């Protein structure tokens, strides 16, 4: 491949594609051709860059200039100014909300600065659909090293020594799992890569498959060699069509290069891979359930032991590892267990990818060393909470995890400390919540989710989640009773004790942690019939402040329930009996008026109909306001 003057790393992860990355690619190609720069500039469609909140985005190599929030109409100017005349375009660069001056270089942006890339080592640098790109970055070197100079036992020893633990959530030591499987006398053996990433709010597995599929193939082949397997499956959610497509392509390329299939690299070792799709059942992320799903059985979990490493798919010993775990393996082999075990804390080694989402300025995927504090993640990498709202809690571990309150912001993130705080590592979703999030409502949301996704095998999980939901719904509807909190706690522990699989034993966590850290919110709902975050519909009312309303008619026009009374120059009034509390009026009210208010726990002040508007000085006329909004 000829060296080019400029390489454009255009992110084509799912987020940026949804934002129009391919449309931008087309315009870029046209513009580059128009200036006759084809021989100097190449466009590399990369996997997910991680800074999804800025998408669609582009990194210009070799300087590593970062452009975000691109629109097709910006492209001609960008090509002309930067690529032709060599003047980087400031207005397309990333500007943190608290600063005026943009940050041109990717490496200077705080979001990237604190990260440590091991699993995501190739993100945004290679074209995931080209195996040569991966090989050029030391790809498949670890596989070669393993096959030519290490015995399977040595590989397992190395992984045990590195302290690598399962990244799917539970954190079982990977090397030990491999060893158990290797020692099973029964053959054949299987390796399954678990990419049934069902936790809402987590998407790092998808991102790894989309940005660097070969690292997973390499890791899985090394695992196969270590345990003595000749066949493997990659189980991917059907909701990830792009990941499935790229993985399929990667497998075909690896076969073509002799890195999968019979007699790999001429060493006599044979291994092949197959993709299996899920069909949208959360419980399939549980390993025994996943096995049943591939086998075509009803995907209900079963009792362990025997563990899948002893009796797994088709009754044979099977290792099931998470995507992230497998993608870490080649790096450990290449750089040594000692190097890896120096990163992280005493019990949790290496790095972990988190998806930092929710009410946070810098949304995206981050890879950080274990032991980093929440404060560093939220304020340094994440750039704080938008709109100067107050940070309230962060939810980790999906529906199995819990909410960690702002008071624990200095908590180091590793498996043990998260469990101690009542949450768990889970797959690594980190959903940031601000003061506008109602914790009772969040607990209800998760229980709704798990109640829906419970497979129904254990009564405690099936009926217990329904009973939890009933009480939580009662509380958010303003009909909570004294004793409800105690009942929730008691029931939650019964469910934890008596359910079989991970789904049931962890589903009460969101309820337990929110009660533990936000008991006063529950009490406000029950005793004062008030929702402190002003979320729960039955406990709030929308009201237009007659002092602030400028009678611009926008809310009246947009109200789907036609509940707003008003005309030009006359203060608008919401008819509380018609209001469906959809919140549209609050959303459309121009921010500089800010006349629509949410009330909770207090009577709605009566407003007389037909009041004249008190005009502020220099207000825009309704027409101008609308066009600027």
């Amino acid at each position, binding site marked *: 491949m000829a060296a080019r003057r400029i390489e454009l790393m255009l992110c084509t992860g799912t987020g940026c594609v949804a934002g129009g990355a391919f449309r931008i690619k087309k315009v870029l190609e046209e513009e580059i051709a128009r200036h006759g720069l084809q021989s100097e500039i190449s466009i590399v469609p990369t996997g997910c860059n991680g800074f999804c909140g800025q998408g669609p985005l582009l990194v210009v190599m070799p300087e590593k200039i970062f452009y975000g929030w691109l629109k097709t109409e910006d492209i001609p100017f960008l090509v002309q100014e930067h690529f032709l005349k060599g003047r980087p375009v400031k207005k397309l660069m990333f500007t943190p909300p608290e600063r005026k001056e943009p940050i041109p270089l990717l490496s200077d942006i705080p979001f990237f600065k604190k990260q440590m890339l091991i699993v995501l080592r190739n993100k945004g640098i290679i074209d995931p659909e080209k195996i040569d790109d991966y090989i050029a970055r030391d790809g498949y070197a670890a596989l070669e090293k393993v096959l030519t100079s290490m015995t399977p036992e040595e590989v397992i020893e190395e992984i045990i020594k590195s302290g690598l633990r399962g990244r799917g959530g539970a954190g079982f030591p990977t090397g030990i799992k491999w060893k158990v499987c290797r020692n099973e006398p029964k053959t054949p053996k299987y390796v399954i890569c678990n990419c049934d990433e069902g936790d809402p709010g987590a998407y790092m597995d998808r991102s790894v498959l989309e940005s660097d599929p070969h690292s997973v193939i390499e890791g899985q082949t090394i695992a196969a060699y270590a345990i003595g397997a000749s066949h493997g499956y990659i189980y991917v959610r059907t909701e990830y069509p792009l990941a499935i497509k790229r993985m399929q392509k990667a497998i075909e390329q690896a076969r073509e290069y002799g890195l999968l299939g019979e007699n790999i690299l001429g060493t006599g070792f044979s291994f092949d891979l197959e993709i299996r799709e899920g069909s*949208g059942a959360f419980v399939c992320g549980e390993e025994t359930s996943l096995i049943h799903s591939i086998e075509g059985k009803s995907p209900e979990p079963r009792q362990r032991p025997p563990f899948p490493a002893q009796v797994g798919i088709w009754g044979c010993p099977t290792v099931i590892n998470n995507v992230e775990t497998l993608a870490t393996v080649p790096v450990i082999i290449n750089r040594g267990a000692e190097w890896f075990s120096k990163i992280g804390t005493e019990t949790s080694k290496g790095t972990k990818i988190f998806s930092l989402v929710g009410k946070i300025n810098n949304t995206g995927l981050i890879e950080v060393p274990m032991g980093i504090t929440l404060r560093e993640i939220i304020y340094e990498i994440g750039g704080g909470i938008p709109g100067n709202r107050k940070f309230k809690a962060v939810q980790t571990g999906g529906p199995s995890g819990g909410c960690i309150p702002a008071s624990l912001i200095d908590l180091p993130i590793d498996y043990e400390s998260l469990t101690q705080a009542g949450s768990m590592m889970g797959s690594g979703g980190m959903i940031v919540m601000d003061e506008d999030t109602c914790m009772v409502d969040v607990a209800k949301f998760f229980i709704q989710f798990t109640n829906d996704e419970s497979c129904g095998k254990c009564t405690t999980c099936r009926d217990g989640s329904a009973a939890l939901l009933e009480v939580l719904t009662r509380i958010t509807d303003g009909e909570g009773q004294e004793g409800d909190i105690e009942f929730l706690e008691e029931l939650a522990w019964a469910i934890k004790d008596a359910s079989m699989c991970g789904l049931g034993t962890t589903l009460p966590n969101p309820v337990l942690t929110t009660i533990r850290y936000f008991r006063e919110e529950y009490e406000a709902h029950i005793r004062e019939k008030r929702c402190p975050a002003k979320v729960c519909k039955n406990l709030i009312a929308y009201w237009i402040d007659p002092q602030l309303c400028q009678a611009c008619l926008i809310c009246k026009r947009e109200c789907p329930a036609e509940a707003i009374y008003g005309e030009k120059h006359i203060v608008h009034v919401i008819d509380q009996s018609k209001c469906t509390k959809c919140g549209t009026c609050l959303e459309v009210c121009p921010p500089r008026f800010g006349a629509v208010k949410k009330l909770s726990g207090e009577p709605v002040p009566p407003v007389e109909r037909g009041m004249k508007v008190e005009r502020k000085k220099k207000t825009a006329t309704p027409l101008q306001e609308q066009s600027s909004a």
Partner: protein
Amino acid sequence: MSNGGERREKVGAALVVGGGIGGMQAALDLADAGIKVYLVESKPAIGGVMSQLDKTFPTNDCAMCTMAPRLVAIGRHKDIEVLTLTEVERIEGEPGNFTVTLRRRARFVDENVCTGCGSCVANCPVRFIPQPLDSIPPVKLAPEVQARVDQIIAEHRNRPGPLMPILQSINAVYNYFPEDVLRYVSQQLGIPLTHILRVATFYNAFSIVPRGKYIINVCMGTTCYVRGSERLMERFSDTLKIKPEETTPDMLFTLKAVRCIGCCGLAPAVMIGDTVYGKLTVKEIPGIIKKFQGANGHGQAHTG
């Protein structure tokens, strides 16, 4: 109970079908109200599932303590006649005045003499009587459907665990599982239909009722939820006049809540077909629906 018009005089007897805990309680309440009750149960004894339980969830009450007094009360009640090993064959008449024909199977044991010692059970040499399978006629599909399904089956049948890939391919073609296609697959693969249905109804991506051309997947992942996806769902629901999981009468749209589509950076997000709409606000929804309706030559959208 009377279907309007004149009231007929009711005969003072009631029939309770099923002798589980619910049937038992119903029989007792009726009998206490002075009505003669026939309690019919197809099993050899009343009691139902509750008699097999130790405790009941979520109150953890002792199952036998709940049931035993009722068993005794039924046995003693002069107005309750327990008919075990009995099934309802036919009901004639109208509400309030009807005749029921029951079929009672032979017990081969004299109930007045039996002490319930159980030795006959322990000593009977017959343990398992296989029932002859009714011969099921082969399912006939329309030729073009059969050709398509046959092709899908042929593609996957030799892989281990072929059912899931086959179901996924069928779902990709029809958006749902037509019943006769499932029956056909069952016969071709030799997998019982009940098993296939169990798998087919387990997953969110599958459906056994027809769905619209466009499936509107409103992401209800945590991030989208805290960023207000519930309101998007409400607006879609109001605009299309259907509830979640329902389909519009013109078979164009199915509204569906979906678990995290992994576009958390774009929350709240909605996926229609392969297109993701990120950072969506309720205001944009009528426009999106119109666009899809327009693509299908439909007239004006019903905007809410």
